[in-house]
């Protein structure tokens, strides 16, 4: 399964007496960029290292979410599932991880669980195009279809008036 990875950037601003710009955890940051560049091996390696020094729940969550993506890219769906589960256990309202876990379940051919995660994600983020993409993959797996385009050049309206017997 081909996997594209997208990045969500969060920026918090708070006022204090210092100016610190840029990521607080370089390994997590670089790991995310390596994953974006489809270098799953390097991305996972850096993210694992960054996770050791993660500060706070938010960085941990980001790290595990990225590992879920990274291990899936490496084809290690079972390991990816552990990291997605970690995030969802701690934050059941994180729709992105439902999106990721639905893909992991698809990879594992656990279709019912994939469908359940898509529904949970869509309940949290109803208009997400990414979740619609995963839903499309799910449907392709369980209910594949083929495209059919019919071209009909027949005239809808007769060009000449129809003659009626009583006229």
């Amino acid at each position, binding site marked *: 399964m081909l996997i594209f990875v*997208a990045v969500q950037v969060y920026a918090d601003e708070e006022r204090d007496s210092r100016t610190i710009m840029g990521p607080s955890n370089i390994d997590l940051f670089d790991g995310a960029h390596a994953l974006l560049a489809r270098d799953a091996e390097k991305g996972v390696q850096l993210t694992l290292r960054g996770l050791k020094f993660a500060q706070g729940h938010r960085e941990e969550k980001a790290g595990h979410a990225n590992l879920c993506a990274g291990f899936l890219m490496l084809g290690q769906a079972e390991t990816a599932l552990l990291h997605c589960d970690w995030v969802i256990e701690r934050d059941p309202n994180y729709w992105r991880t439902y999106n990721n876990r639905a893909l992991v379940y698809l990879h594992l051919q656990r279709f019912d669980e994939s469908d359940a995660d898509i529904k949970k994600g869509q309940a949290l983020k109803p208009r997400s195009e990414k979740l619609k993409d995963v839903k499309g993959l799910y449907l392709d797996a369980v209910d594949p279809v083929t495209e059919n385009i019919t071209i009909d050049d027949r005239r809808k309206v007769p060009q000449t008036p129809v003659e009626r017997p009583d006229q």
Partner: protein
Amino acid sequence: MSRIWVVLPLLIVAPALAADDAPLVARVVDAYTDRIPVQTVVPIYPRKARRDRVEGEVHVCFHINRKGRTRRVGVRTSTNRAFERPSIKAVSASTFRPLAEDEPLREIKSCRTFIFSLEPVLD
């Protein structure tokens, strides 16, 4: 002073759907028109419509000039806007047999209906 904290949680995004590889079935039901089609271009099934399992129908009308090219292409009716652009593009790229110099140009207007449907793949 500001402190900007940046974290990059990744999101696995679905691949381009298998639509690209899927066989496209196209058939012309009839060609009841004065002009003879030379090249009939089949529209592309919109990716999002296929993904969302949306089907639809578009009725496009257009003029055919002496050279057999289509002009003034416009949608007459459609069930879903997603299908309109590919239908217009398909008609615009389609051609008909040119008329000979001494051949009169009787009827220049024609219409074409595109029916976009999805059929289950049978094992």
